């Protein structure tokens, strides 16, 4: 038997007028870092809430750690940790008070509490902030506190909803180092994001758009099976060039990156460089280069959008 610990089939959730999640199939294995990549409103939070048992699906089935959700939600409470998108600890409690509260709520024996809390304070660099009110901390500090609280009881599965939205790029790297540490210790992590660099760090990811899963797999496979080639063009009038290229059959998208134009060409065109050079708008002195696809390109080809 494989060690799939989160399994969803045909998971669907409708709100009054919105189909937030539509027929989502998922299989997440133990120890994986699994990413939900999608733009605003693509259903990341809704899907995550259903996988935790906070929202009932309109239809479809969920198994988490062998329990059917949402019916048996209480059975998995002690084994999962959830970091909400919006800060949900108490603003008017200090860092220490918040962590103590969580420790008691999760029934951590009193004699182990201060050891565990001190450990978390040092891992997440909050020692100097212990007696500061959570509400008065910066966005990044608050997200570190939320992660500390979500991991306090050593959950088997960690659900993180856009955990780094308020974190600067450098701290984001540190944050991810901590996620890798948790993953190495065997924690399964489901993380939602709309940052490409974060998505690229996941073992596997699902690209969501308007509640529908457009693609899934490891970042490498996704890039390999993207179904398009990426050509970068160095030329004079890039804006004009973009306008002329976009209407062409086979051109999926064109985006300006500094002095270059990054063009995605569908892979039913055998030789994309030759294809472009035949076009009138390309001049002989322009430089064309076939480059490695990025996750952003995968996102663009699978959703038809330019940014998540």
């Amino acid at each position: 038997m494989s060690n799939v610990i989160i399994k969803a089939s045909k998971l669907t959730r409708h709100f009054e007028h919105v189909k937030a999640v539509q027929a989502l199939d998922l299989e997440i294995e133990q120890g994986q870092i699994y990413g939900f990549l999608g733009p605003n409103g693509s259903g990341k939070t809704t899907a995550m809430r259903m996988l935790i048992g906070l929202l009932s699906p309109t239809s479809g089935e969920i198994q988490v750690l062998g329990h059917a959700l949402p019916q048996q939600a209480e059975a998995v409470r002690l084994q999962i940790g959830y970091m909400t998108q919006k800060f949900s600890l108490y603003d008017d409690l200090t860092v220490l008070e918040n962590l103590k509260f969580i420790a008691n709520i999760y029934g951590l024996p009193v004699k182990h509490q201060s050891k565990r809390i001190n450990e978390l304070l040092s891992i997440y660099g909050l020692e100097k902030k212990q007696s500061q009110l959570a509400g008065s901390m910066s966005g990044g500090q608050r997200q570190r506190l939320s992660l500390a609280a979500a991991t306090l009881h050593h959950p088997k599965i960690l659900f993180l909803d856009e955990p780094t939205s308020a974190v600067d790029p450098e701290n984001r790297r540190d944050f991810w180092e901590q996620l890798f540490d948790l993953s190495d210790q065997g924690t399964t992590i489901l993380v939602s994001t709309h940052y490409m660099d974060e998505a690229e760090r996941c073992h596997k990811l699902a690209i969501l758009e308007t509640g529908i899963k457009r693609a899934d797999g490891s970042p490498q496979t996704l890039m390999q099976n993207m179904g398009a080639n990426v050509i970068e063009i160095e030329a004079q009038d890039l804006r004009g060039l973009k306008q002329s290229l976009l209407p062409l059959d086979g051109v999926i998208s064109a985006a300006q990156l500094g002095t270059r134009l990054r063009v995605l060409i569908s892979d039913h065109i055998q030789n994309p460089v030759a294809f472009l050079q035949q076009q009138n708008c390309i001049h002989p002195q322009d430089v064309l280069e076939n480059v490695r696809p990025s996750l952003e390109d995968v996102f663009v080809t699978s959703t038809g959008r330019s940014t998540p």
Partner: protein
Amino acid sequence: MTSWLRIKAIFFKELIQLKRDRMTFGMIVMIPLIQLLLFGYAINTNIRHIPAGVVDMSQTGISRLLIQTVQATQVVDVQHYFQNEEQAQAAIARADIRAVLFIPQDISQRLARHPSVGLGTPASTDEETTRPIAQWIVDGSDTIVAGAIKGLKGMPLVELLNKPANRSVPTFEITLLFNPEQRTVVNIVPGLVGIILTMTMIMFTSAAIVRERERGNMEMLITTPVRPIELMLGKIIPYIFIGSIQVSIILGLGYTLFNVPVNGGLWDLAGATFLFITASLTLGLVISTIAKNQLQSMQMTVFILMPSILLSGFMFPYEGMPEAAQYIAEALPATHFMRMIRGIVAREVDLFAMSYDVYWLALFTLAGLVVASLRFMKRLD
């Protein structure tokens, strides 16, 4: 299995939050303090100094003596004199005065024939002896003012006469138990305990669950293993202490400022108060599971508070209300508490003698806790 650790965690969290919320914290002390002073000094059903006018058609020594006697009762304060009845009634309509004493021209003859004077010769006719000596015209829209003037109906006329009057023998003798001096505060102070607790206890907890939702803490809370009943208990226990502090403030000040002692047993007082506090708190919790936001919870609190003030017996005697109103009053915890606390404070009744109210409040609390816990879903949908 219910976990004390979790109840304790919620309890301390609530205490810390309360401590940091200076405004609410201040209200805990200020509400009972201010309300007690306001009501204690302001509410008085022994009406005095009602502004009044006089139309004196006789202008005799007798009529002036009558006016002085009326003044001496302190019930009215004669402020205006009028030429005729029309002027006087206009003044009542303008609310310059609340009542007018109309003294007819023939007051001397009327007085001479009045039974309290009992002038024997020539023999008075029945018609003569039943004629009052003067008339009060009163603004009857305020029944309490009207009642006070009505009280003057049988005013003794001793001072009006040079000779001792024929005393009329009262039909009943009345013995006033518990509050012989008829001081309003004896009834107001214990009643105020019920009203203030209704207000603060329901108000605090009616916001309890809604606030977690509005501030976004709910999504975290329902992901934890906390059980609804643990959450509910953890949220009401701090307020049991706070309610007790408020009761002490009211009754303590009631004793020192208004000289209203607690005649009954302190354990009976503690028991009754505990029952009422928990009943009010769970009522607040139920509201909190219904309301969508803090404004709604506030509105529902007022919805309960108004009938608690008007129907519980605080303002008007329960017995005087129509049957339908009595049924509504019976459904309010405040009505049961009003009976108990007044009994304990004024009449030295013990809790065993009021077991109906005791069971009622206990059952109300249990039912409230069950309803609130069942209504509280650990879901977002």
